[in-house]
């Protein structure tokens, strides 16, 4: 009886059995990479805005405090997006004729909001409150990165649950003195000593129950 298969079928079958394992592992690994890539999370992607507002210029070079615009960050859940009136505090005096700022002046004239593009958008099933983080010693920079060095703002972190939990499980790695919250350039001398001490001082707990965020 003639052979059904060529001799090479032996090699082919052995390779395919072992190869299938590696292929499967590669698929799982690839999916894990894609899920964490900026394609999914939008991390690191600078967003076009209706007015090319530069945080680098205002917060970095001019040194305007975060809270001048994001007024409610210490009191309520949302840090707050400033009304056009806040812009006009200065821009009614300086750069009055700049064509770039025309949308701002137009907004001020007709009382319509500037349609800023939201960069950080958590899912609706997540409860997040800025004020508690600020009060417990988490600096703006810890989550938002060096905003003072970004022209157009991008999302610094993945905002995925594993990223939230990374800090909620180990707050001592990120906590800082309250007076340094709005200091973008602050660096701890020795976080390993400072972190646990601040956790005790600010009475920080490792909050990882589901209902801390999913209320």
């Amino acid at each position, binding site marked *: *009886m003639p052979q*059904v*298969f060529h001799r090479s*079928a*032996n090699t082919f*079958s052995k390779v395919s059995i072992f190869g299938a394992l590696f292929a499967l592992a590669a698929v*799982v690994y690839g999916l*894990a990479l894609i*899920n*964490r890539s900026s394609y999914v999370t939008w991390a690191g992607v600078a967003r076009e805005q209706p007015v090319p507002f530069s945080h680098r210029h205002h917060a970095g070079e001019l040194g305007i405090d975060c809270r001048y615009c994001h007024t409610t960050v210490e009191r309520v859940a949302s840090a707050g997006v400033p009304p056009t009136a806040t812009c006009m505090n200065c821009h009614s005096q300086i750069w009055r004729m700049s064509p770039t700022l025309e949308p701002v002046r137009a907004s001020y004239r007709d009382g319509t909001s500037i349609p800023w593009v939201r960069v950080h958008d958590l899912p609706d099933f997540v409860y997040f409150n800025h004020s508690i983080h600020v009060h417990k010693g988490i600096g703006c920079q810890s989550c938002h990165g060096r905003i003072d060095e970004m022209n157009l703002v991008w999302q610094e972190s*993945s905002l*995925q*649950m*594993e*990223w*939230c*939990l*990374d800090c909620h499980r180990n707050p001592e790695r990120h906590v800082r003195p309250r007076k340094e919250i709005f200091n973008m350039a602050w660096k701890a001398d020795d976080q390993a000593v400072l972190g646990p001490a601040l956790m005790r001082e600010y009475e920080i707990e490792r909050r990882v129950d589901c209902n801390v965020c999913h209320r």
Partner: protein
Amino acid sequence: MSEPGKHTGPAGPTRAPVIQPGHTFGSVTDRISSVVLSERMPRLWWLGLGVGFLLVTVLLVAVTHLFMKGTGIWGVNVPVGWGFAIICFVWWVGIGHAGTLISAILLLLNQDWRTSINRFAEAMTLFAVACAGLYPILHLGRPWLAYWLFPYPNTMGMWPQFRSPLIWDVFAVSTYASVSAMFWYVGLIPDLATLRDRSPSRAGRVIYGMLAMGWRGSARHWHRYETAYLLLAALAAPLVVSVHTVVSFDFAVSVVPGWHATIFPPYFVAGAIFSGFAMVLTLAIPLRVMFGLEDFVTMRHLDNMARVMLATGLVVAYGYMTETFMAWYSANPFETYMIMNRFGGPYSVAYWSLIFCNVLMPQLLWFRRVRANVPLLFVISIVVNIGMWLERYVIVVTSLHRDFLPSSWGMYSGTIWDWATFAGTIGLFLSLLFLFIRFLPMISIFEMRTLVPEAEVREESP
């Protein structure tokens, strides 16, 4: 153990042989492989596959409707949040147990009568586990996220809740399914090679040839094969007890009266083997007639399976007695109420039916004449299957529907969609089984060959 003629002659004065006398290597191979290689299937096969396929269609409709509307189409609601899905899951997983018991434990115990029934009992195991596996996924509500059940490096930074028996279930059932599939496949390899060599069509030779993985039947092949098969059997043997033990933990780890009992693991395992053997009988009796395999699946097999059913049925009956005894002995009012509610509550018909099906009916198997009466055995096996389904129904529903507080009492019954899904999984099971019979040898050819007299190695007399 190896007295001459043991395989062909009766073990006792009245016991039937495990294979009818007069068979040779060739006749065994011809007889079994002809079912697969023949071009025409008996009319009953078409009927069986037709009914199965029709019910698969019902399953597809039920599942599509479920995905569109959600689990609200089922009868489950507070306080009975677990209904048909868990009842049928446990029922199907239990049915699967006979396959592993026959293939692994009876192999290790050198029980030669397992040979004729192990192949399709293993296939039955796989198909039953496939049906069982559907239920937890359908019950998830968002079945497309079923992969969340597995511990994989997800972006949520979370593992599944390892303290929950439900996640133990995931591991128990998936291990069970994969080990059973491997055992079944390894057992098939020499027979696939036989089919490759005998297949009249080129397509058959190529497909069976690929599946046979280059089996040539050399002495070295056989040596390695026997070792691997025994090792796999040893791996599979603990699964016979572990899987249904873990399934029983779904209930026993809770604090619900009627569930929170230490008797649950052994009682569930015995029930699983009980129902598994009942299902093997339910399938074997028509199949041996349909394909004329009475020479291989003899009265000896039916008799032995009936005995296993009787023994495990008695363990299950002991389980029911223990439940009742503990309800009194615990002096716990909730436990007592639970058992009284089973006896005389709104679901008492289901309870007494299950006692009839699982305790009274199997007592007939004490009589040799009953065990030799094939139609009666068939009826008993079906009654036991129904009884074991009722057992899970009673356990799940009676414990939940009367909660600790009378204000949260309620009634449960399956909706048309519950029944459609259940009927659909029976259809899936039947379809897979009939397709298996069509394309693979339902009895192990090479193991059957070891039972014919030619296989006895005798010393040449000088």
